[in-house]
Each structure stands twice: as C-alpha cells, then as structure tokens.
C-alpha cells in the first residue's frame, strides 16, 4: 500500500492505493480508513487482492486540504469529478460506505457512464419518511466527558464490538485518530447538517438514472442509517441485483465483518 498527495485544482488530495487490475475507487465513511485509521483496514486489503484500490480522503479529512467552499453534497461531487480527471479514471468500479456511499450515489446519478459497477454499504443520502438517519453529532459528544459508548452503538452493532472499541475508545484515543475523527465530523457538518441529516431530498428521484449493475450491502443492525434506506436504494436503482444483509454487523459492515463484506463485493465485481 502506498500513500501520496495529488494536486487537484490547486488543492492537495491525500490518497492510499494498493493492488493491481481494474481501478476501484473507495469512498470512506465515518468508521473507516481516513476517518479514523491512517492505513487500509483488512476490508480494503482484501479488495486489493483483485483490484487497484484507490481510496482518497474527502475534503478536510486526513491530509486532504480543507475546502471552506464545501457547503453541500454538490460541492463534494464536483470535487470528486476533479479527482477523477486528475487520476485519469474514465471507467471504474465505485464502492462507498456511509457518507462515502452517499457521495458514490450522487456521482452515479450524474455520471452513470463512468461507473462500471456500483457498491453502496450502509449509504447515507436518502430521505425516508419515518426513518431518520441518526444524529452522529450529538453522539460524538462524549457522556461524562469521556464515554463514546452511544457513538459506538450508532456506528457498529454494539458499543463493545472490538473494532468499535479500537476506533472510538473511551477517554483519550490515539491523537491522530482523534484528529481524523474530528476532521470527518467537520466535513459531515458541512454537508450533512442542513438540511438534517445526511440526505439530499432530490437524490431518491434521480436514482433511476444509474445504469451500472449495483449491489447494496447493509449491516443487519444498522443504528445510524436504518435498513429501510438500503431497501429504498435497492428498489429504486434499476439494475440492483440485491440488498445483501451482513448478519451480526451494524452500520460499519466493512469493518465489523470484513471477510463476508469483501467477499460479497468481490463476487459481485467478478460476475
């Protein structure tokens, strides 16, 4: 795995890359590479066995420059169009988790021709009546000044999942992990706070434009983006093969059960 900064439209974009083969763009979520961890997690390494995995950090995350003009999801989409140009990626597989899944869906409705296959994992982005996306900001404020138990519960199947405890420990975490968490929340605040929370009302009516074969993956107990959002994506994306449920996992299926989640992605991409 190697990391590098590329220059995009006058700004620095940090990305990690590993593997050979067809290009696969991975867009990260809240409990993920770039948003907590510096390096690829097992899930990304597994994907890299079959593909050239390219994982950029979103604007303001990890070592990617912050862009104070990012005010809405649209700005992030255009940021990624510039990144794609810089990387000379014209056709690629696109995998996005959580807020990265939202960005992936927004890219796909605008430029369906660029995307060979699309995978959404616990993707935010939709408004589903009666099933609000959770308030990650409230839960990012620790209880008793130090406990992130409810945040872990929101982002994982439960507060005591070992990966949850490693990524969002109580008290003081690794300094740079904490800074990356903060940066991602800051980006989240730019694009996901108004309108509340993490959705674009218009996205639902645009999903029919997606032409690529699509796989939607959801943790069985997602406490952040309710499963009905996965069902809605699966129903409204024309070429969606299935809504794959990862048993025992919560919102961060790719972190909680990397084997099964990576296998589902790789099988789908290989079909």
């Amino acid at each position, binding site marked *: 795995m190697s990391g590098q900064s590329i220059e995009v439209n006058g700004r620095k974009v940090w990305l990690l890359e590993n593997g050979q083969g067809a290009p696969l763009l991975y867009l990260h979520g809240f409990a993920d590479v770039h948003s907590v961890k510096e390096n690829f997690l097992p899930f990304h390494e597994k994907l890299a066995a079959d593909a050239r995995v390219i994982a950029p950090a979103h604007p303001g995350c990890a070592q990617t420059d912050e862009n104070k003009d990012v005010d809405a999801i649209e700005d992030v989409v255009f940021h990624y169009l510039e990144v794609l140009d810089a990387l000379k990626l014209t056709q690629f597989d696109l995998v996005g988790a959580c807020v990265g899944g939202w960005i992936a869906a927004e890219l796909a409705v605008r430029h369906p021709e660029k995307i060979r296959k699309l995978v959404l994992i616990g993707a935010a982005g939709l408004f589903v009546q009666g099933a609000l996306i959770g308030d*990650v900001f409230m839960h990012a*404020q620790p209880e008793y000044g130090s406990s992130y138990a409810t945040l872990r519960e929101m982002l994982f199947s439960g507060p005591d999942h070992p990966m949850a405890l490693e990524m969002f420990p109580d008290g003081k975490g690794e300094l740079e992990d904490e800074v990356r968490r903060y940066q991602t929340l*800051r980006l989240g605040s*730019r694009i996901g706070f108004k309108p509340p929370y993490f959705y674009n009302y218009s996205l639902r009516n645009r999903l029919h434009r997606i032409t690529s074969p699509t796989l939607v993956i959801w943790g069985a107990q997602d406490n952040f983006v309710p499963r009905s959002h996965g069902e809605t994506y699966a129903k409204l994306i024309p070429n969606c093969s299935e809504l794959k449920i990862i048993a025992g996992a919560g919102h961060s299926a790719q972190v909680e059960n990397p084997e099964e989640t990576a296998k589902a992605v790789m099988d789908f991409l290989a079909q």
Partner: protein
Amino acid sequence: MKPVQLFCWHFMAYPYLDKDFDKKESSGWVTVPNRLWDNSKARGLYQEYIDQLAYADELGFDGMVLNEHHQNIYGLMPSPNLIAAALSQSTSRGKIVILGNLLPLHLNPMRVAEEYAMLDQMSHGRLVAGFAPGGGPETFNYNVPSANTREKFWEAADLIVRSWTEDGPFTHEGRYFPLRYVNLWPKPLQKPFPPVWIPGSRSPSTMTEVAKRGYCYFLSSRSHGGETHRAQQEFAAVLEKHGDKYHPFRFGILMSTYVAETDQQAREECEEGVWYFLKNCLKGHLRREGRQLTYGPGVPYIPAAAWREYLKSYTPGRKLLGDVENWEELEASQSIIVGSPETVTRRIQSLIEKAKVGNLLIQFQLGNMPDHLVRKSMKLFAEKVAPALRQTSLKQFSEEYPGVNFEQSAEAVH
C-alpha cells in the same frame, strides 16, 4: 478616566424544577423536557426578573446585561431584544448590554442591525451591541452547521456595522448573506455606532478578529483562576500586534456573587440557589454528568489544527464547574464569590488587580434564588462593595494606563 464598570447580568433561569431534577433528567439543555414548564408557577416570572434588572439601574449599576439562549432551563431569553425593549422603557440610566444576538441563527443579519438600531433609539443611546456565534447547543436546536459558523458570524457582524455606518442603499456581495439593497431605517443613535462586544474563550483567532476591528473582548469563562489573567495578557499582546493598546475597557469578564451581612450568613442564604444553578442549570453545559453539548467533536467549529492543540492538553472526563462537590472546591474555582461586603470586595479587588479588567459583568440571581435575597445582595453590593471597587480601580487604572482616553476608545473605532 473612569473606574471599573459594574454591570448586573441576568440569565433568567427557570427556577421551579423539582428537587429530583438532577436525578431524573440527563440534561438541562436542548432536550430537557418542556413538560416541566409550569404555568401555575411561572406566571409573572419575567416581570420579577425585569424588575430585578430595573432595580440594578436604580442602585447605580453601570448597566444591565442580557444574552440569548434556546431550549434550556439556564436562560429563558431566546430573544434578549424583547427584554431590552422592556428595559429601555423602565430604566433611564444604565447601559443595556446584549451579549449577544447569536448571528448565525438569524436568516438575515439585517434583522439584528434593525432591532439593535431600534433599541439604541428607544434607550437614548444606551445600547452595547454584542454579537456572538452561538455554541454547541445552538447548533443542535437551530440546525446551524458548525464548520462554517465562524465565517458566517464575521460576515454578519461586519455587515451589521457597515449598515450602521455607511450610507444606504448599498449592495452587500457576501458569501452567506448577499443583499442587493442594504438601507437601514432607523439608524442607531450612538456615533459612529454603538460599542460592540464579542465573547470568546481564549481562541487566538477570535481575539485577532476582535482586535482588528477595535471591539471589546469579553471572556466567556465562568471560572477565574490564572486563566483570566492569561487571557488578558494574550488579548493585550494581540492588540499590540495590531498597533493598538490594551486598556481595561477593552476587556470584560463574567462572574457571579452573593453578598450578605456576614460570610456565614451569605453562604447560608445563597447555598440552595447556588447548587440549583450548578447542578441543574449547568447540566448539559458545564458538567461532565450526562452529555455536555457546549464544546467537543460533535460541534466541530474550530479548525482541525486547533482541535489537535486542544487534544494535546485536555483530560477526558475532567471536572467542569458544575461538577464541584463541595463548597471548598467552589471557592477555589473563583467563579461564584460569596461573603460579607469585606470578603467580596477583597476578592474582586484582587481579581481586578491581576486581570486588569474594566468591565465586570456580575450575575446576582443564581438558579432558584428568591427575589428578596437577590435584591438584598444587589443592594449590599451597590452600597458596600461597589464604592470601594470604584475607588481602588480608578487609582489602579490611572497609574497603569496613564493618558488613555477610555471614553473615546471604549467605542469601537475602525
């Protein structure tokens, strides 16, 4: 030359919570259930509080202070401007300090410019115009994204002052509040414009922005150990850097006090109100119990680099003001100064001496403190504490800041 300016600050707490509130409810902010509001008790509460402020004016305080809060039991003033309007008619002397309107919560800053201009006219030029960006709780209850709050805030603040000083109509080509026709009617009475105060919590960038514009910096901390003195030094250094000079009326602090005939009596009389304030009003704001919403990763309004610096020295789960467990800890925090006129005078004198602060914004009503005790404490303060503070501070300021024209520079100058 003038002595320390003594203001009476009222937060207007909700005082009718049951004794088991702290046990039953996880917060006094944002999510505190509003079924606890009891009309049978609360009727007349605003009148009681407004009358206390008017009493401060009668007693010779230099002004009255109001501020804006939403959805909490700590401060029942979603619109301080309404209270200020009432005070403009029921008082005649003291400044009316609004500290401040939370600018990012307003869809259009012109509303603030207009209401402040009205208040300045209605009060015959007694308005001190505070602007604040709002803290964590307001991001939650008003859906204000944190990341660009500061930028929005300064654009709004600058537009308001421009609308007060520049002839209209003019066009504001702003990022957040573009307006084709800015043409303020009425204009404020004070010239060039009402004094502007900005609260901050020692963030260098806020100090810099305040210094650039010549405004007064108000330290929003409730505790006054060494940090108050450090904040003063930091702000003085920032002013120097901008070719300006510190003097005591560029700086203000918030403190709480209770004065009674003796130390013993003071403590006995105020203790219930003080604990109500610490345990109920500060829950969700300055307590680690439950979920503090004021500051933290969920309200990411400071840049990531500043957050990294903050993380280096912070201790998770550390005690905040509302977590003090006994009277001795409270005394050590220098947040609420309680005692006889002699004790209170001595302690505040030493604070002024060290922090060189010219604006003391003093909270008298704490938690559920009853009206008669609030008034008694205010009266004792006005008669037995204030004269001594004025005398010693005048001497101190004259020696330390000779030749400074406070009157002129207390007004913000561009």
